């Protein structure tokens, strides 16, 4: 039996994991990963809306991601789902699947797929620096590593989170009469910024746009303490001098922000590294805080997992293909349809 397996040449990875119109398809396992269109069986790496879309027949994801999707999609979430914790293998058709932490947001997972003697790791979105709101990325040796490339240009080297939070707190000292309106994505970035502020010793209440409150409560239920949060209402809006207010990224351009006392408009995003991007968005205080790997982290991660073959998706494939090619990897772009540039 053992001799038989060894003598069978492993089928090429691209023959059993490939791009289909619906997204990345694993035929021998009978599922799609982060499909962009409704499918019968979906494996979801994390809860961001460009990965976790509604309308699938059944969903396999980590318990946290399932909870996030239920909170976001309500009745549209399928009744058939499987909550699979990190590190527990599951058999799907002819494929064995295991989730490992991706360090991106709460519940984010890499999917390790094993079939025909080959292991492919689909890492989803990930980052490598410590994040108090989710467990760290766990490198897994593999034959093919599928990586994101959101910030795959060497100009993207995120500074330390503590440094960026320090800049926010310094601005509060310089402009104590102004509200500090920080744009954050509702899932992940928002809770991370709050946690980083708490780590920096900022214990005052943080004021929240209503759209962010639901996921904050969910994080707290999953054991991520966020400290005192206060909902911004029309009644208290004018009283927020010298306070930190978190809101979705577009809120500063909305009428919602008007009653705030002369807000300093800040934004927490990896794109804030590029001055022109920040200026074009009308940002006065850009905070380079990202939930995606920067260039150095992408480079280091590929070296750590040791896969001779790397498939690149979600961003600037060409630069990473070029760079990894020079280092001797077989690197190529995995042209995924329907995935937009995710930001943050």
């Amino acid at each position, binding site marked *: 039996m053992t001799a038989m397996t060894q003598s069978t040449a492993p089928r090429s990875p691209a023959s059993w994991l490939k791009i289909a119109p619906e997204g990345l398809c694993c035929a021998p396992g009978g599922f799609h990963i982060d499909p962009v269109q409704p499918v019968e069986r979906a494996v979801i790496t994390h809860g961001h809306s460009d990965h976790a879309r509604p309308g699938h027949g059944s969903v396999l994801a980590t318990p946290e991601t399932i909870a996030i999707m239920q909170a976001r999609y309500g009745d549209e979430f399928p009744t058939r789902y499987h909550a699979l914790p990190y590190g527990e293998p599951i058999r799907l058709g002819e494929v064995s699947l295991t989730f490992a932490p991706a360090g991106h947001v709460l519940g984010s997972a890499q999917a390790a797929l094993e079939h025909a003697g080959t292991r492919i790791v689909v890492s989803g979105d990930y980052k490598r620096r410590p994040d108090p709101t989710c467990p760290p990325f766990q490198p897994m040796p593999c034959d093919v590593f599928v990586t994101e490339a959101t910030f795959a*240009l*060497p*100009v993207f080297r995120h*500074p330390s989170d503590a440094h960026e939070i320090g800049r926010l707190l310094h601005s509060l000292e310089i402009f104590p009469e102004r509200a500090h309106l920080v744009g954050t994505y509702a899932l992940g970035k928002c809770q991370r910024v709050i946690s980083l502020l708490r780590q920096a010793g900022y214990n005052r209440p943080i004021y929240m746009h209503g759209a962010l409150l639901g996921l904050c409560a969910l994080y707290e239920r999953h054991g991520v303490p966020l400290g005192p949060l206060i909902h911004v209402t029309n009644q208290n809006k004018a009283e927020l001098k010298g306070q930190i207010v978190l809101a979705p990224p577009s809120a*500063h351009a909305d009428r919602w922000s008007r009653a705030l006392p002369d807000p300093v408009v800040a934004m927490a995003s990896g794109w804030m590294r590029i001055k*022109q991007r920040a200026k074009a968005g*009308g940002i006065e205080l850009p905070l380079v805080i990202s939930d995606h790997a920067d260039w150095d982290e992408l480079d280091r991660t590929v070296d750590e997992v040791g896969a001779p073959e790397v498939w690149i998706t979600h961003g*600037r494939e060409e*630069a990473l293909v070029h760079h990894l090619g020079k280092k001797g990897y077989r690197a190529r772009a995995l042209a995924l349809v329907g995935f937009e540039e995710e930001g943050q």
Partner: protein
Amino acid sequence: MQRFAELLEGLVFQPARNGKLRLIETYFREAPDPDRGYGLAALTSSLVFTQAKPALIRGLVEARVDPVLFGWSWDFVGDLAETVALIWPEEASPHPVPHLTEVVETLSTTGKVELPGVLMRWLDAMDATQRWALLKLITGELRVGVSARLAKTALANFGGVDVNEIEELWHGLAPPYLELFAWLEKRGEKPAVDGEASFRPLMLATALEEDETQGLDPADYMAEWKWDGIRVQLAARPGGQRRIFSRTGDDVGRAFPDILERMEFDAVLDGELLVVRGAEVAPFNHLQQRLNRKVVTKAMLTDYPAHVRLYDILRDGEEDLRGLGFEERRRRLEAWYARVRPERMDVSALVPFSSWEELKALREGARENGIEGLMLKRRDSPYLAGRPKGHWFKWKRGALTADTVLMYAQRGSGKRSSYYSDYTFGAWRDGALVPVGKAYFGFTDEELRQLDNWVRNHTTNRFGPVREVEPKLVLEVAFDSVHRSTRHRSGIAMRFPRVHRIRWDKPAEEADRVETLEKMVVE
């Protein structure tokens, strides 16, 4: 370098004047001597050292980084200094991050040959923001939206003194301004400055509305034409310093060597810088050809000859004349001019009059180039810094107006970042609208709210912060004049356009045509 780099970065993103002032004041409070003095010098363009050319910086980075990746990155980022700052490999450096003082002092003694090695060592030791600030500094292109005047105002706020006190001292001081900071922190005497061609803060006029002449006696005032040029102060000492200051105290002499070389006198004069050919004043945009140029070519000197029309004298030799009344100073100016006769300069003529009606008729009759209206000066006014009430008035000709159609609106910055507050408007040509100008003031807060609402409800297209709107709303815009322009599709450009009235009532088809505006062009 850390604090200075953070200051520059903060200034780049800070849209509001008050916000910029606050950032600079904070820097003066937090940074030590002599760093903050060199920081002040950088903001006021008072540093002199060997600058690095972009090609040198590019060479340094391409020796360190894969040129293909560098090229893609530069395409993506757009700005060379920023790209290099971000892409520079970060490895542990044996060198500490240099202080701003070390950077400035080293650069002032470093020749072109050693410069690359020095830069490389610094870039290795710094973080991305520091590298960016260093590269901006050594290429001589800070571009953080801070004038020398603004930096001095922040300094005045920091020390709790009048900015004019700083202006008077300024050109007698040099970086790193230790004495100045000591005085501002009440640790030392006010620095003594004399024998210098230093700036005297200007006396400015207030606007006079039509009905305000009633309470004024025409016999108390003298009138001159108001010239459409640039207010300058000429300050010269014999055998040495010669300076041409702008109204904000910036030294603009480098752009006007044709004036500087003729300042062989010992006086401080106030006047209007113009381009004059023969006896004729050229339109303002001819003068603009001479401004903000690093290199003044021979052709520019010939094609756009500069001229100063003098209207006041503040110092004659050792004698400070600012305490005298205007009429007396004027006599002194005429006597001085008759004695010295500098080329490329003349004395602004007085406009005799006996009643306000007569003067008003003269004003409306004068439509030639270079005249914006009239200046009224009280005969007995001393020369006072700032904008004292009741002494000098500018009495402009009525503004021109046109009915235009709102085409695009852009979100403002700072307090206006949630409002569409910058408006591009157009006029008709062959049945289509052609943009003819841009205005972002002239309306009340309430009107801004209404305009913002209208823009949001009539958007047809979005491009980043800009919205294209249905061509339906008529804006009556006011402007001072119209000029030909090859940079605009309409072929014309307005001076000081502002929203005069929102014509909610008027159908867009009845707005003005481009031809109507062309007829207003001053040739």
